[in-house]
């Protein structure tokens, strides 16, 4: 526990003496009898060897976004054609450096988020408030235990974990400096470290808020909550929370309750703040996610918009003001250029907001922000119209020259120009189709040389859809129960459950959100366990079958075959990773404490988990997913994921790459390319579906498990591609791997592919030399 710390905060300061010193040694004098593993509080190099094993097997693959580099005062430098920059870097190393930068920015955001939450809860509940995820969860913090070797018991213990992360982040960021690290694999190893730290921060954030705010503690059947652009009741004052940090919203809900206003004010959320507020109170409504943020602001559907942190459009303050909405920023990361009124009396601030003297303010105190938000909304709501006002005269469309620029900046390359031209002729169909697929980037808007507010037109064309947009989602349940792990551990490892497929990521899709729901349903129907979180979880809710039911209404919320589990916000992604860790620990009894490599090795070799991040936007997505790969969980991104410019790709055609150690003998043994890639950017849904079915195959699948996985793989392959896979022979070890009913059909195919039966190592395989039995 080399880096553990005892944190003493908020000492009485004026005379520099200690009042009420509270030294928490929870993580030190503890009752966790498991001896610590080899890598407690890992440094930048503690897991470097593990990373290099992964990176040699899954070589980084780069797709540079630009030929140049412009990071420093020497630049910019042209790195095309093998040229080096003025600092000596080449384009490959520079890509690695960029990946590290993305991951460390992402990790810093989640860490800051966790820190703000923990600070808030410590202030509210005290440092010794227990971490408690309910009676059915003993392993309350699988990632924290795994990574740091600490078993956190109180909020105070979490502070120590965050200090460790902050220190590591500073060190990692330092490697980004021009003229430091020399090697792309070392940059990637550091990126993996950043990703792991990111995941750790997610867990800290979520277990803190679950413990402190009474969120569901792994209940499979959380209540349904309302979601959609049309769910808010405009007859009441409306407050919408945007971002990720629940604190101001929680304070608002509590203030409303105290003031007897709960039924009189409408509280909505956008992005993860929405998720987390519904976990706190099922009456809060989810309005939308990132892809609709700008439209939500433009409609002026809120009286007051409260910003916290992360995934907030950079122009939202400006847009809100234009719509007459008052804005309250609440966190130092997002000051928004607003005057800091934290120290001013509530009355004065409300007065200034209501009168419009200030359209927005910064209040760095969630409870004060809550009171100001409510009182302002109540004051100004009666003065505005009830109906959403029409966004813009569609007449604006008539100014369109058809120059096509709007299409040529559109992220998903939608035919915006044609749609605007059609609208100019009175036909809104195309524009309404664009509305469906639009990711809300707003670039069409600002590029138009005729200053046509294109996005507003799109919103106008979709107005009927907006009004009708009402769905149901199961509120985020948080962690997976230990009992669930016990129940599914065997079927997952043995293969009766073909795999765990996680849908995460941002609402930046190539062809609309619908594809995410379709993929989720495909796997749920096949009785994979489907888990989801964040924007993806919201988008899954925006899809109804013919009977008008959403997937959350059709499939159970349990972590079991055929379930669709909404864990919650982005920070709840931690539980998805945590579930894999818990399977290794609870079901397979692998030691957990500070034992990262062994657990990751176990997951990579045995647990058929895969993540599909169909839309990605900012650096947090990159960080979370990178962390997952270090744990041995492959990630599939949608096509826009190439913008992150790196993949980790295996070479299924090169046999030497697939030779882990036989655990018993220590011999290197060919296992086939399983999982084939660690990070793959798929072009289409059809590709992703089949690839996911392939990636859940692992070297140590049991015969039965492999045959069930193969059945699904073959089935999907045939369904989507109309034929049998050319790589079938790579995944069949013995005849018993084949689905029983198809053996006769498949054996001849296999032989034509040059297949020969292989042995299946009895005790399985590992990448870790030290886990070979005879070497222990």
């Amino acid at each position, binding site marked *: 526990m080399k880096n553990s710390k005892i944190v003493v905060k908020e000492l009485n300061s004026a005379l520099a003496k200690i009042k009420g010193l509270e030294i928490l040694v929870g993580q030190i004098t503890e009752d966790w009898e498991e001896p610590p593993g080899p890598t407690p509080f890992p440094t930048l190099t503690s897991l470097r060897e593990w990373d290099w094993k992964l990176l040699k097997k899954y070589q980084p693959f*780069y797709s540079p*976004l630009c030929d140049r580099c412009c990071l420093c005062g020497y630049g910019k430098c*042209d790195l095309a054609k093998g040229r080096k920059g003025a600092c000596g870097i080449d384009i490959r190393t520079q890509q690695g450096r960029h990946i590290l930068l993305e991951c460390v920015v992402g990790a810093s955001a989640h860490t800051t988020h966790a820190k703000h939450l923990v600070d808030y809860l410590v202030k509210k509940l005290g440092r010794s408030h227990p971490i408690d995820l309910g009676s059915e969860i003993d392993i309350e913090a699988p990632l924290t235990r795994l990574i740091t070797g600490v078993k956190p018991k109180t909020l105070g213990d979490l502070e120590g974990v965050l200090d460790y992360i902050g220190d590591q982040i500073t060190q990692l960021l330092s490697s980004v400096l021009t003229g430091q690290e020399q090697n792309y694999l070392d940059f990637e190893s550091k990126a993996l470290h950043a990703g792991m730290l990111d995941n750790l921060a997610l867990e800290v954030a979520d277990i803190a808020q679950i413990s402190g705010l009474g969120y569901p503690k792994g209940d499979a059947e959380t209540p349904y909550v309302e979601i959609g652009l049309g769910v808010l009741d405009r007859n009441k004052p409306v407050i919408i929370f945007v971002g990720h940090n629940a604190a101001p919203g929680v304070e608002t809900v509590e203030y409303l309750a105290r003031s007897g206003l709960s039924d009189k004010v409408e509280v909505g959320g956008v992005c993860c703040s929405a998720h987390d507020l519904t976990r706190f109170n099922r009456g809060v409504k989810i309005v939308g996610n990132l892809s609709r943020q700008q439209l939500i602001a433009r409609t002026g559907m809120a009286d007051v918009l409260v910003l916290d942190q992360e995934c907030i459009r950079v122009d939202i303050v400006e847009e809100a003001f234009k719509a007459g909405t008052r804005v309250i920023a609440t966190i130092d990361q997002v000051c928004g250029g607003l005057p800091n009124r934290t120290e001013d009396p509530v009355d004065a601030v409300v007065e200034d907001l209501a009168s419009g003297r200030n359209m927005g303010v910064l209040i760095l105190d969630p409870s004060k922000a809550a009171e100001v938000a409510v009182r302002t909304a109540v004051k100004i709501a009666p003065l505005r119209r009830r109906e959403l006002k029409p966004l813009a005269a569609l007449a604006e469309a008539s100014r369109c020259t058809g120059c096509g620029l709007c299409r040529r900046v559109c992220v998903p390359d939608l035919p915006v120009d044609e749609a605007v031209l059609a609208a100019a002729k009175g036909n809104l169909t195309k524009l309404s189709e664009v509305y469906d697929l639009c990711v809300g980037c707003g670039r069409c808007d600002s590029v138009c040389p005729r200053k046509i507010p294109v996005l507003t037109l799109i919103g106008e064309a979709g107005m009927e859809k907006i009004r009708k947009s009402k769905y149901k989602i199961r509120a985020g349940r948080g962690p997976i129960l230990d009992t669930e792990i016990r129940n599914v551990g065997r079927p997952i490892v043995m293969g009766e459950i073909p795999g765990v497929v996680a849908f995460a990521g941002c609402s930046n899709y190539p062809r609309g959100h619908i594809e995410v729901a379709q993929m989720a349903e495909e796997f749920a129907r096949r009785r994979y366990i489907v888990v989801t979180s964040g924007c993806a979880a919201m988008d899954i809710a925006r899809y109804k079958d013919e009977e008008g039911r959403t997937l959350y209404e059709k499939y159970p919320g349990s972590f079991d075959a055929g379930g669709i589990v909404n864990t919650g916000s982005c920070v709840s992604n931690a539980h998805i990773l945590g579930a894999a860790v818990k399977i290794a620990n609870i079901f397979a009894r692998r030691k957990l404490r500070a034992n990262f490599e062994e657990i990751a090795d176990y997951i990579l070799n045995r647990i058929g988990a895969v993540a599909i991040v169909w839309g990605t936007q900012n650096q947090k997505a990159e960080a979370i997913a990178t962390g997952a790969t270090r744990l041995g969980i492959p990630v599939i991104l949608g096509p826009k994921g190439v*913008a992150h410019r790196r993949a980790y790709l295996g070479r299924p*055609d090169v046999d030497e790459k697939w030779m882990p150690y036989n655990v018993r003998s220590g011999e290197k043994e060919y296992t086939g390319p399983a999982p084939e890639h660690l990070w793959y950017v798929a072009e289409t849904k059809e590709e992703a579906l089949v690839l996911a079915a392939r990636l859940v195959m692992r070297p140590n699948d049991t015969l039965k498990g492999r045959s069930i996985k193969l059945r699904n793989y073959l089935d999907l392959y045939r369904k*989507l591609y109309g034929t049998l896979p050319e790589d079938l022979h790579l995944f069949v070890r013995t005849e018993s791997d084949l689905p029983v009913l198809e053996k006769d059909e498949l054996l001849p195919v296999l032989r034509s592919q040059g297949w020969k039966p292989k042995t299946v190592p009895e005790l399985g395989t590992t990448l870790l030399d030290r886990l070979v039995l005879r070497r222990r």
Partner: protein
Amino acid sequence: MAAPWQLAEVPGLEQALTLKPEMAAKLLRNAKRPLIVVGGNVLGAKGEDVDVVKFVHRLAELTGSPVVVSPGCFRVFRERIGDVPLTCMGLEDLVNRMRDENWQGLRGEGNHDLVVFLGGIYFFQSQLLSTLKHFASHLKTLSLDRFYQPNATFSFQTATEDRWKKDLEKILEELEAKTS
């Protein structure tokens, strides 16, 4: 330098040479081990009054080139032109193999020297072409999409649907002329 289709895509000074169909045909004729790669967005292009499936078919026949079809549209290609050798492979996987100079190509006869790209999602395609541009100096890439792809070695300029159709036809004509 032509402007890329999605406007922000200008990568630097090293941008694709734009070329006419005659020149494209010549490149194809001279290639020792060409490869045709069809992206997952190709069927979207159909609406533009070009039957890309047919075009690919004919191009494969005339050049004797193997064809890789993205999983996003493999099924349709297989159903319609299953008589030419089609491989279903994800583009990123394929590009990853291509960037390895020692990869023996789809036919095991050596890495390809000219790779024709058609029908990928624009942005996605652009990035994979970037990979090859930076890390596969052993091969050349040729984009035959309607939209200029700056990261290719050679690319059509952005053209009207009609122009594009004619250019594709012209390539086939040229190849036919020389083959016959």
